[in-house]
Every structure is written in structure tokens, then in C-alpha cells.
């Protein structure tokens, strides 16, 4: 009698185990890459997010690119006889073209060249009223692109 009961318990345990296995397993576990959805990969039995977005842009390029200055200085500025204070700061960021990495690199060069030409003053401190001549000079030089850009890169420092 006890033996038959033991057998019954054994078979019941086996049945429960089989049902548990066949009904699935804990969500998020995996044994194959194809067990994991989307951009996740199977590592140590778990589906984990794989970051394949590529290298993160370096801070300098990203920050300068957000300013979006080159259009304002190299295109708009030379055509304006009396540049307003809004020209560099407002028009550029909201500009027509979203800044790209290339634009950002040019920004860095331009910013550096502007700073050098205005005696080291920062852009925030740059006042068109007080430095109108210098601003025009800068704008004119910037419109020439090539040489100024190169010089800006050199002057940009470390």
C-alpha cells in the first residue's frame, strides 16, 4: 500500500515537473539568441540589452554643434549692414538646419577664430554694439571659409 502511494507521489512529481517545463519558463530567460526579442541578446541565461548604437559623440563636438553658429556668421552676417544682438545667439540655434557633426566641427573652428579675433572675449560676452567693427571683420573673414577655418582649428587649442 505504501509502495503504491510512493509510486503515485513520484509520478505526480514527475507530471508536475513536466507540466511546469512545458508550460514555459521564467520570462526573460533564454538559452538561444533567438529566444530574446529585439535588440536584446542572450547572456548567462538572461536577455540583456545590447548597446550597438555606436560610439558616443565627444562632448566638444556635440556641444558646439548645438550652438549652430556657422550659418549665422558665415552667411547671414556679411549681408547685414547692422547686425543685431540676436543674430548670433537666436537665429543660429533655431536655424533652418539641424546641426550635424560636420557643422559642429566647423562651429568649433569658427568659435575659436571669433574668440581670437575679438581679443579672446567669449561669445556670450561678445557685444555687436561695442565691437561692431570687429564683428564685421570677423564675419567677413568667416565668409572666406577655408583659411579662417583652418586657422580656427589651429587656434582652438587642446
Amino acid at each position, binding site marked *: 500500500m505504501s509502495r503504491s502511494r510512493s509510486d503515485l507521489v513520484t509520478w505526480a512529481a514527475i507530471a508536475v515537473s513536466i507540466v511546469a*517545463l512545458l508550460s514555459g519558463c521564467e520570462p526573460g*530567460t533564454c*538559452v*538561444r539568441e*533567438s*529566444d530574446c526579442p529585439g535588440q536584446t541578446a542572450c547572456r*548567462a*541565461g538572461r536577455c540583456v540589452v545590447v548597446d550597438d548604437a555606436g560610439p558616443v559623440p565627444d562632448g566638444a563636438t556635440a556641444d558646439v554643434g548645438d550652438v549652430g553658429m556657422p550659418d549665422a556668421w558665415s552667411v547671414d552676417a556679411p549681408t547685414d549692414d547692422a547686425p543685431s544682438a540676436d543674430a548670433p545667439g537666436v537665429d543660429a540655434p533655431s536655424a533652418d538646419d539641424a546641426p550635424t557633426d560636420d557643422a559642429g566641427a566647423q562651429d568649433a573652428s569658427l568659435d575659436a577664430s571669433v574668440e581670437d579675433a575679438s581679443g579672446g572675449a567669449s561669445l556670450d560676452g561678445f557685444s555687436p554694439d561695442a565691437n561692431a567693427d570687429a564683428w564685421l571683420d570677423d564675419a567677413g573673414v568667416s565668409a572666406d571659409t577655408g583659411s579662417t577655418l583652418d586657422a580656427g582649428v589651429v587656434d582652438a587649442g587642446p
Partner: protein
Amino acid sequence: MERRGPPNAPRSTWIWATALTLATTASVIAPTPALADRRFAVDVRAGSGVSVGGGDGQATLHRTPVYVEAGATSWLDDEQNVLVGGSVRVEVEDRASIGGVLRAGLRADLGPLEIRPFAGLAAILMPYTLIGPEVGAFIVVELAGPLSLIVHLAIDAWLFGSDLPPSTVLFMGNGGLGVEIAL
């Protein structure tokens, strides 16, 4: 002109000896019997099971995706205990993949049952890959005439493939059920 062949042997003797050697070799490496002496059976099965893998010192259990297999088995009338076969395997649960298995095995007739232990090479080929050996057995129960019930029990050891996590081996214990038709 320099004479070819063994010294002191007529040219015709050398030619006949070469032909006999080639014929003997061909008969050994290609013992193709008449098609009438070869028997076939086809089957369709569906199954699932348990996968064990994980890596990094951890064993993770996972249910094997449901698969469907369509296969064929062949044996010779005068060597009925030896068979070869293969099947196409399609995984149909949560994914869609296709692969196949090549098998060689034995037949053991046990009255109403026929047991066919086998070993083979299994592979999943698309859209990812898994390759490894498979061992197991078919249990065939004759139902009526050429129709039989077929049970497939197998263990796969997936050793290679793009679907394996890095530095891991995946084991599967699968069971399937289907029908076989003897041709």
C-alpha cells in the same frame, strides 16, 4: 617509343588488369542495389521538449520551440536492420527557422512495436544556424496497413552556430509524435 606497363607483360594483359581493378573498386565503393530492393517510409511529426543552456556556469532550462518535421527512412530488403534517413525540421513557435537532420540507425522488430535507435547530424540553417549531433530513437506502432504511429525521442547537442550565446553549448531533449506511411 618507350613501352609503358610492367616489364615482360603483353600490352593486352596490362589493359585487362587495369579494367578489372577499376571494376572491382567501383563495385566496392558504389554497391547500388536495384531500386526494387530498397524500401521507403515517410513520416510527419510535431514535437517540443526542454533545452538546457545558459553559460557562465549557470544552467537555464527553457522549453524547446514547437517544431514540425517531415522525414523519410530507407532500408534494404536484405539488410532490414540497418536504415538511413533524414528529415526537414521547421521551428514554428515564436520564430520561424528551417533545418534538417541526417540519420543512420538500426531496426528492432518487437512484435507490435518497432524500435529504431539512431545517431545523426542535425542543423538549423536559416535564419540562424545551429549544428550538432543528435541521438535518439523512433518508436513505431503499426496502426493499419501502411499507416503507423511514430514517436520520436531525441537528444541534440548543439555545438556550433550563430544562435548560440558566446561560449555555450545547448542541449535539447525533444519528443515528437506523428504518423508514418510505408511505401
